[in-house]
């Protein structure tokens, strides 16, 4: 039971439509999230990380839709095809929040400023559990206390503007965790926070994972966060997962040129002043006017003619896959 799969995404394609143009925001993405494990999705802005999360939660904006692919939630009552559900329907609403919960990037805009924190936690409990009014109130206080918020009895009646950034994010996690979800999707949960507060939030998420066996999907752009928290990692670039595998494999033996370039472009703490950082030339292509083949080809140092065609997803080993024509050369160059 320990490592069973909580969610499978297979060949997912989500497109956005705008002014008669089509943005293939996600173009064939497959991965799975395992119970009690953290999957980190890492990539630059605009690569489709957040759209992946929104697709799973069925929270996509109106001018976009899932074109192809399967999202399967392996719940306690057998598998459920999330992509086939009506996004406002009863079954989706019972999964969203209860079984799969989400933490958003900016706690100030994600919390409603005109309702107290307590109300917003109790709202979740009201819809998803059969608890009574009193019990809901006590549970809300318990949740805030377990998130390390001081004086929860008083804080529960306060409004978001009285909370600091770190406390707001913790309140958001309290809302997300209120119904003991089996999957927690965290979309850049600490990007707006200071490092010392970030460390507090990570500690908290780690505890949740260990104690409740929650499956976590963490979206980030910070390779440091990946190294600290992830069990598995998926590197995204322009709507594709270009490389995925266990964190040790991907970070020690990256075979996709983008993963390598990404790792080479950040200064790493502890390597001193002499470390060499290599910038990735150019910038990400216009999402409405993408290159035909490999999306990274224009910025890649190892480009060959074949890169004008989209490379297939290839297994390097059992749990390590990559999308690159030349991965074999990179796999054997012993980096």
């Amino acid at each position, binding site marked *: 039971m320990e490592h069973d799969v909580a969610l499978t995404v297979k060949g997912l394609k989500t497109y956005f439509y705008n002014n008669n143009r089509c943005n293939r925001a996600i173009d064939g993405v497959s991965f799975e999230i395992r119970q009690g494990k953290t999957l980190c999705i890492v990539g*630059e*802005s605009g690569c489709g990380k957040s759209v992946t999360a929104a697709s799973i939660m069925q929270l996509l904006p109106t001018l976009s839709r899932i074109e192809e692919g399967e999202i399967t939630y392996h719940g306690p009552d057998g598998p459920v095809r999330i992509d086939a559900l009506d996004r406002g329907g009863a079954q989706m609403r019972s999964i969203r929040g209860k079984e799969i919960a989400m933490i958003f990037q900016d706690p100030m805009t994600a919390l409603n400023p005109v309702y107290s924190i307590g109300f917003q936690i109790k709202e979740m409990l009201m819809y998803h559990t059969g608890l009574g009014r009193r019990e809901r109130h006590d549970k809300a206080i318990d949740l805030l206390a377990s998130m*390390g918020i*001081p004086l929860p009895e008083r804080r529960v009646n306060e409004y978001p503007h009285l909370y*600091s*950034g*770190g*406390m707001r994010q913790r309140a958001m996690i309290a809302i997300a965790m209120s119904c003991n979800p089996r999957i927690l999707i965290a979309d850049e949960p600490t990007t707006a926070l*200071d*490092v*010392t*507060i*970030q*460390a*507090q939030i*990570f*500690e908290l998420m780690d505890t949740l994972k260990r104690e409740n066996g929650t499956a976590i999907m963490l979206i980030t*752009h*910070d*390779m*440091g*966060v*990946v*190294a*600290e*928290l992830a069990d598995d990692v998926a590197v995204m670039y322009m709507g594709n997962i270009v490389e995925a595998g266990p*964190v*040790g494999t991907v*970070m*020690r033996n990256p075979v996709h040129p983008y993963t390598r*370039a*990404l*790792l080479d*472009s*950040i*200064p*790493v*703490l*502890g*390597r*001193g*002043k002499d*470390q060499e*950082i*290599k*910038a*990735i*030339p150019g*910038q990400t292509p216009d999402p409405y006017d993408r290159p035909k083949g490999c999306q990274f080809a224009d910025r890649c140092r190892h480009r060959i003619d074949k890169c004008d065609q989209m490379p297939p997803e290839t297994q390097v080993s059992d749990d390590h896959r990559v999308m690159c024509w030349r991965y074999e050369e990179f796999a054997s160059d012993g980096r």
Partner: protein
Amino acid sequence: MAADPILSLRNVEVHFPVRTGVLKRVTAHVRAVDGVDLDVYRGEVLGLVGESGCGKTTLGKAILQLVRATQGTVTYSGEDGETELTTQDDAGLFAFRKRLQIVFQDPHSSLNPAFTIFGSLEDPLRHYGVKTRAERRKIVGDLLEAVNMRREAMDRYPHEFSGGQRQRIGIARALSIDPELIVCDEAVSALDVSIQAQVLQLLMDLKREKNLTYVFITHDLSVTEYLCDRIAVMYLGKVVELCDAEELYSNTLHPYTQALLSAIPVADLDRKSQRIVLQGDVPSPINPPSGCPFHPRCRFAQDICRTDVPRLRAYKAGSGVHMAACHLIDQPLAD
């Protein structure tokens, strides 16, 4: 780089009044910068790091006299001797604005969207005596080439550029009148990692070429390690530790710096260090704690920390001086 200060700050305080009630009476002060002594040496990169709200940006602005210090002095030393900037009026500052420039954090709001790039970049040139338009166009073109952009970019508008390009335009603007010192206020924080490396390399190349001095304000300690010669760590408006970059990472003295360093996620799987998780949030600068500002969150806090404000004292170090403000560090060199 022997002691040749370009700027000397002595006991600089910036307090902002807080006005409340109908009569807008001053009821308190935000002590954004609270007594800072700092020298900036010619040709160095000085890092100013700290969490949000610690006063690093205000200090940066106080250096440029964009905010006037409520107390203390900022002295500029150039070929024509020393000048106290804090006592100059706007007309008197005119000559010094040419030598001290700033690159702002947000590349999206620091360029006027109604002006072409040339319109934004020619302003400083016009003020500082480049009379003909043809000459200005030539200089702006050269500047854009210096920051790896095309000359033709000058006739386009800010919205046509990506974040990284806009930040490079911001750097070109700061360079336009040949400054001696540039304050970079979180100049790379809003950029994607691959673009961040491009801008960092550009800054370092320009520094070598033009013999610039940088004050680099950031919250990212991995970037400062790569970039800076000396680092000042700030907490609640005070400098708590100041020393050579290498010394700071190898021999951290102040408990706050230790916690800050340990909280940074490191993109290196072989370097899993013990995280020191600080409890609580940064206290309000309106009503800072008594004694050492860090004592409510400090693991080692003792009675003396609650009552006495520690002064910045010099400690023994491999090369140069290591300054720290803490009661509990042994062996100060001089009191």
